[in-house]
């Protein structure tokens, strides 16, 4: 039992290590002091107003949201198609294809970023929003495939076969049977893809056209001097979006699925 208590304490300390810095950012977002660090001098929302008034940040925010949403749509769409092929069909070289599909994770992001950039340079194409979009989509694709694939394996093939034997076309079967059953995975995959895009900095620094900033690159640029209180407020907003939205969605999903039963 003494050993167990030691394990418990150890685990608690590791969790503390993981969350204390994040909590510090969340608290400092409401600090009225004009400096970004401690001590906390009082409660204030002024840094959120400042954020709202900062045109560069608002623009970066819009870019990131649009980019994240479009990345989610693209990578989820092609990811679902690929997962269907992997789970529902037998074909030669499946293991190899699976490795190819997760290869964007296996290549270091820095290398991937430089490679794509050099290819683009060879094509004499300028860096653009489109580059960020396709680039983020390819980075998010493996995660979408893994999430959707895991879920798809759990959906019995019999449902689809029943629909087919009752006269539904393959397309009808997909939209009326498979897709509704797959919806939780679609949402999970899309949220995952959105977060990956919204959070990406490693490749984005290389790919963004000059003058275009996403939220992470904007923060990175602002960090040169010190952590300003605005960065803390921005951090708070980002955490609310990337943590709050999935939690809320998951909570709601659980609530509704319980109600049904």
């Amino acid at each position, binding site marked *: 039992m003494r050993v167990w208590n030691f394990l418990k304490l150890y685990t608690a300390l590791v*969790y503390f290590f993981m969350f204390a810095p994040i909590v510090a*950012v969340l608290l400092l977002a409401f600090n009225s002091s004009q400096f970004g660090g401690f001590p906390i001098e009082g409660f204030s929302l002024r840094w959120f107003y400042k954020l709202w008034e900062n045109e560069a940040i608002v623009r970066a925010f819009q870019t990131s949201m649009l980019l994240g949403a479009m990345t989610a749509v693209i990578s989820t769409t092609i990811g679902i198609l690929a997962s269907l092929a992997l789970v529902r069909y037998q074909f030669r070289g499946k293991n190899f294809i699976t490795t190819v599909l997760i290869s964007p994770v296996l290549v270091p992001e820095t290398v991937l970023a430089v490679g*794509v950039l*050099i290819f683009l340079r060879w094509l004499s194409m300028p860096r653009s929003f489109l580059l960020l979009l396709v680039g983020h989509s390819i980075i998010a694709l493996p995660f979408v495939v893994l999430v959707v694939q895991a879920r798809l394996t759990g959906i019995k093939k019999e449902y689809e076969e029943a629909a087919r034997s009752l006269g539904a076309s393959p397309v009808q079967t997909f939209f009326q049977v498979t897709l509704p059953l797959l919806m939780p995975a679609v949402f999970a995959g899309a949220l995952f893809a959105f977060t990956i895009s919204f959070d990406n900095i*490693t490749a984005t620094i290389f790919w963004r056209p000059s003058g275009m900033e996403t939220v*992470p690159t904007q*923060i990175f640029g602002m960090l040169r001097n010190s952590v300003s209180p605005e960065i803390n407020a921005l951090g708070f907003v980002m955490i609310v979006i990337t943590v709050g939205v999935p939690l809320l969605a998951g909570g709601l999903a659980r609530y509704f699925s319980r109600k049904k039963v």
Partner: protein
Amino acid sequence: MAETKEFDARPWYLLAPSLLAIFALVVVPMSFILVYSFYENVDLAVDRVAFQFGNWQELLTDGYYRTAIWKTLRLSVIVTVLAAVLGYIPAYFIAMTKFRHKWLLLLLLILPFWVSFIIRTLSWIHIMGNQGVINGLLMWLGLTDEPIKMMYNEFAVIVGFIHVFLPYMILNIYVSLEGIDQNLEPAARTLGATPWQAYREVTLPLSLPGLAAGCLLVFVLTGGSYVTPLILGGPGDFLYGNLIYDAVVVELNWPMGATLSFTLLVLLGLVVTLYSRLMGMNQLTKAFSQ
């Protein structure tokens, strides 16, 4: 249905968009890196098509690049080992606990993945910086009059990396521990093993695949990054990725950037290949599909 024995094109239609995208954005660019590494850099952002080994020669002879490779290897090993040491026990605890709200511990483990990387990294300035929590506490307690310098050195970079990559480690170890038959350890106990023996000879070996997967991920992710040292490190704390960043973004020396990138790809690729030969890729995909 005589058709079933013939070639079925349907899965390939479904795979086509993904495979095309990966071909255009991963396969082709990787070949371009290799080709560009033989080009010659003439001036800022100007390069000449050539087949010469100047960049490779520079890479192999200039001690600066070797230092960077060495530094990166050293730092990646330190981060990986510390993450394993810090991560194993929590993973074990979560897998074995009978705590009713175990899901909460798991949820908390996944949450950091959703918190922005750059926010998690810069948050350490609030902890270890001159106006950080630790210095504030020390000065308040009267243990020191001036803030102790903890930031912008290798230590801060290591802490930042561990903080960001620890959840990968814990999750991977947890997945392999969770998959172990719960009756094995009690069985070993009834056969006369002490709790420690039962753990060491039954559970520990079975958890090694997860530990290996976690170590691989942390090692490769650390070895390929460049942003963390820029935020938490001092001028002397650079990784191999920082050289790539400098070559491409600062000096606009594309051929050298390509040479450096290709080397990093090969070095980290060797690690991944070695791992997949030994362990296979299944363990890795398991943790992600949780």
